[in-house]
């Protein structure tokens, strides 16, 4: 009992000293709690469906940020990993009769393999050349899928997959917990020593090599990690929608993920996640005015990019928080002195 109260008090202290001091951390905390308690207030299947799809696409958008934002390997064909994840899970489920808990991770491993296959020829390419090459891969896979309709279902795709869980509510909890865990893992990776090397590769690859780092290994690692998380989201999508179709590999899918990431702010992980939770429900909401839907959507994105070129969330963060000029710790904007080193903030 004493132990329990010790940990309780300790977590309260951490909460007070580390979380409540910064608006961005409070916002993340509120987001997590809201996601977890929301079904207590409403269990409308339509709402849950939107949130489930948002969670799935949030993993997808964050995985693009990990590969293209952090490591600078501009990938305009990220739908490839999503599609491979979805199709692998579907094939394993329908032909291999594997349950979702096995087919989704195996599908993600399929996406990792694809990441390596795509990554190896892309190692020599940079910038625009890399972007254009990656754009081609999902289109190639789409061609293969149409070529063997007996296995892949051709244009109709593979349908009739088993459900994720028995009910919509459990689907919701499963996807949102996987989303929260995946994003936390991705954030932790970018915050680690590996993350520093990813950043450095984006800045200047030659200088990283001259520092004694095997850049090939790290770039392939970035492709595999990006592929893994995108594959997980693809598998979840296939099992939730109970279909894996060619739409998962479409060019629009690859570009949507770039729009989400740029809207929310790249090189953040939390930016793309937040962006999906704003833009995906917004697009659903605009369904009420179908003729203006895409136009309004484009307008929102253009306005954000015009006034907040770094993305929505970094902009808000910079408004609410300032960095201490001395110790570089972030503080609430209204503070006069740094909360750690007491240097004046101006």
């Amino acid at each position, binding site marked *: 009992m004493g132990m329990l109260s010790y940990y309780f008090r300790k977590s309260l202290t951490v909460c007070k000293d580390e979380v409540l001091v910064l608006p961005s951390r409070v916002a993340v905390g509120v987001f997590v709690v809201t996601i977890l308690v929301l079904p207590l207030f409403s269990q409308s299947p339509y709402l849950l469906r939107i949130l489930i799809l948002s969670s799935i696409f949030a993993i997808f958008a964050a995985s693009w940020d990990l590969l293209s934002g952090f490591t600078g390997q501009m990938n305009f064909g990220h739908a490839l990993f999503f599609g491979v994840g979805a199709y692998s899970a579907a094939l394993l489920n329908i032909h291999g009769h594997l349950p979702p808990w096995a087919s989704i991770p195996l599908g993600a491993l399929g996406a990792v393999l694809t990441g390596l296959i795509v990554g190896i020829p892309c190692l020599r390419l940079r910038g625009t050349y890399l972007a254009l090459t990656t754009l081609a891969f999902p289109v190639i896979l789409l061609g293969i899928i149409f070529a063997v309709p007996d296995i892949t279902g051709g244009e109709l795709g593979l349908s009739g997959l088993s459900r994720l869980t028995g009910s919509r509510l459990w689907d919701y909890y499963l996807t949102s917990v996987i989303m929260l865990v995946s994003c936390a893992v991705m954030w932790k990776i970018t915050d680690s020593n590996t993350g520093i090397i990813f*950043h*450095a590769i984006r800045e200047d690859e030659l*200088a990283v090599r001259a*520092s*004694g780092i*095997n850049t090939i290994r790290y770039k392939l690692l970035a492709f595999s990690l990006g592929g893994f998380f995108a594959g997980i989201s693809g598998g979840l999508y296939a099992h939730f929608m109970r279909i894996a179709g060619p739409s998962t590999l479409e060019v629009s899918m690859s570009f949507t993920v770039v729009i989400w990431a740029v809207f929310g702010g790249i090189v953040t992980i939390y930016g793309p996640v937040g962006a999906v939770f704003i833009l995906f429900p917004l697009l659903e909401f605009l369904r009420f005015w179908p003729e203006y839907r895409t136009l309004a959507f484009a307008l929102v994105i253009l306005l954000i990019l015009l006034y907040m070129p770094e993305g929505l969330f970094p902009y808000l963060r910079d408004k609410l928080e300032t960095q201490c000029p001395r110790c*570089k710790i972030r503080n609430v904007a209204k503070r006069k002195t740094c909360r750690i080193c007491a240097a004046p903030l101006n």
Partner: protein
Amino acid sequence: MPTDFLTVEGLSKDFGGLRAIGNVSFSMGRNEVIGLIGPNGAGKTTLLRLITGILKPDSGTIRFKNTDIAGKKTWDIVGMGIACTFQNMRPFRRLPIIANVMVSCLSPRAMKRGEWVKKVEAKAMDALEFAGISDMALEKASTLSQGDLKRLEVARAIATEPELLLLDEPFGGLSPAETELMAKSIKRLHKGGRFGRLHSEGPAMIIVEHKLQQLMKIVTRIIVLDFGTVIADGTPEDVVNDRQVIKAYLGQGGV
């Protein structure tokens, strides 16, 4: 005379029709500091890039501690103990200065060596302290002045604990006072210090430089390149009086 440390033999590199390095041979000992000079376009930087594996030679061998390293990957060469700095500094501009050095500290060679109980950050801080910019560790690299960027390059190179350090124009773009300071640091580095445990005697160096006055004070030997070939190799006194060297630098009338 070939030595066990670094021996370059018959090294050549062409860029299209241009012969950047033609049949260059030299060798150096473990404790030497060599100055590599020559007019612009003589092939000095190309020679350094061939040794570090950034460029692949067309022919010839580079033996480092009895292993042929010609054409090996840059990171393998750095792993064997050769580090280099870049003439046009290449910092990771959007990263804090300490993170710039941490990348080097995360290389397999640096992870294996040095005081293993120390954290990567502490090791990086040591290198920054040695280079004299530890007070700015948390600033972004883009905020640094030219002189400090040169120091960052040096910090990044020594963080891998090299046995051979290749410095490409360490005084380039520095004020006289900054040059003086940098020259002192380089001397101190060669003498060795508390940085690193295994190479307390300091790395051997090849320094490419145009500021000859400062260079003369540091180096024990000078190699002169012109049009990709070695035209002189000897002590600083011999080289500055060499007729061919004066001709290469000042033209026919200067002799």
